[in-house]
């Protein structure tokens, strides 16, 4: 990752606000971290939502924890604005960015910025076979999910990645009839080898989840069956960055908004972090890297000369056995060394150079988190 964009020399315009687009984890974490370093600089945060602050990872566990959408809210936009000393514009859409004049166009007004941070997240990918399906990626979606659930005879989930599996677990433990369908032959295929994936499938089946795959049942059948039986269709087939706004500013985009290790886009004074940012060639759409990005950008914006480096980010999954995954580098060649049985499994991915470069832990082995992290870091630098 050596890409460096736009001239780094920063023309300080002390009176112009720092403007942040997005009130999700990335946007609010950035504000909170920035305020620890700079209590004064004016900040305007613009969001399409109502600006409530809530712990996003809880969306896929809230049903079983008996939390309504309102109960998930930790602070309203007004409370956030007050406690952080910022201005928040809720339910407001940014129509375009004028990067030459350094201003944003909203429906009714124009907002000038000194520096701009795009932290607007990504949208759930839609399934063309089921355009009326529900996806839960933010609080408002969860509200709709809960409302729809009261009228549905059960839930059919499309997608066997992290979110799909977490919802299957949460719904099943709450007593709902759950079907889980994936295009791949086993759940969490991107993250886990066969043995732990099968153990988790069994744990879900023991809770009543019916799992099927494309090789057994075509998607069209699953969708029509759900529609006939008045089952809710819940899709979780990945995220897609909506690049249209970034493109109005002339920002370079690929899958996300391209940034360097300082989160600088291809236009000076415009930055991007979180689900919408592509750092190097990678999108980091998990909690830990996003909060880490926000902390680093807060330092950069307050004048510290630093940059962000990726790390081993354990991904914890809310499933039986508390699986924890340390992802192997995409495309790496190697093999898994595994031990344990049932839901107490551990695996280390050893690449063809003999280096540990990925791992997973389940059940009792979750305790080894710290030692696995240390092993991965040591081998990476060795």
């Amino acid at each position: 990752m050596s890409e460096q964009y736009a001239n780094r020399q920063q023309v300080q315009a002390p009176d112009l606000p720092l403007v942040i687009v997005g009130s999700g984890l990335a946007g609010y974490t950035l504000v909170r971290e920035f305020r620890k370093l700079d209590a004064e600089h004016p900040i305007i945060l613009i969001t399409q939502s109502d600006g409530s602050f809530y712990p996003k990872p809880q969306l896929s566990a809230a049903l079983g924890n008996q939390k309504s959408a309102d109960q998930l809210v930790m602070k309203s936009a007004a409370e956030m604005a007050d406690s952080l000393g910022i201005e928040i514009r809720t339910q407001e859409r940014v129509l375009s960015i004028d990067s030459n004049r350094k201003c944003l166009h909203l429906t009714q007004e124009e907002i000038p910025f000194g520096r701009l941070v795009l932290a607007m997240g990504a949208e759930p990918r839609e399934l063309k076979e089921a355009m009326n399906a529900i996806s839960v990626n933010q609080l408002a979606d969860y509200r709709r999910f809960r409302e729809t659930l009261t009228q549905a005879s059960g839930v059919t989930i499309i997608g066997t990645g992290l979110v799909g599996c977490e919802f299957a677990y949460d719904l099943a433990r709450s007593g709902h009839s759950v079907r889980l369908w994936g295009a791949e032959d086993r759940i969490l295929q991107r993250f886990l080898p066969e043995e732990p994936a099968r153990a988790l499938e069994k744990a879900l089946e023991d809770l009543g989840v019916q799992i099927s795959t494309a090789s057994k049942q075509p998607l069209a059948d699953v969708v029509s069956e759900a529609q006939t039986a008045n089952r809710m269709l819940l899709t979780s087939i990945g995220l897609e960055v909506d690049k249209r706004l970034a493109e109005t500013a002339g920002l370079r985009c690929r899958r996300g908004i391209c940034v360097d290790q300082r989160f600088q886009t291809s236009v000076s004074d415009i930055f991007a972090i979180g689900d919408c940012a592509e750092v190097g060639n990678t999108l980091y759409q998990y909690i830990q890297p996003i909060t880490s990005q926000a902390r680093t950008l807060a330092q950069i914006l307050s004048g510290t000369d630093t940059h962000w480096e990726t790390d081993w980010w354990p991904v914890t999954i809310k499933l039986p056995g508390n699986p924890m995954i340390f992802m192997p580098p995409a495309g790496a060649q190697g093999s898994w060394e595994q031990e344990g049985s049932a839901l107490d499994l551990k695996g280390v991915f050893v690449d063809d150079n003999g280096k540990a470069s990925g791992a997973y832990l389940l059940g009792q082995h979750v305790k080894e988190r710290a030692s696995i992290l240390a092993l991965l870091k040591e081998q990476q630098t060795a």
Partner: protein
Amino acid sequence: MRKWQCIVCGWIYDEAAGVPEEGIAPGTAWDDIPDDWVCPDCGAGKDDFEMVEVA
């Protein structure tokens, strides 16, 4: 015994339970957790936790 919630990810530290897998014994008071300790789920620091009512 109190509970503290990570405001970033919602993870809850329960003083009664501790985090034995991280070497924090059951019954450890929040104040006695080292200042450099971070949330096991999201990496947030201690100052990103708030005390929550015990449900």
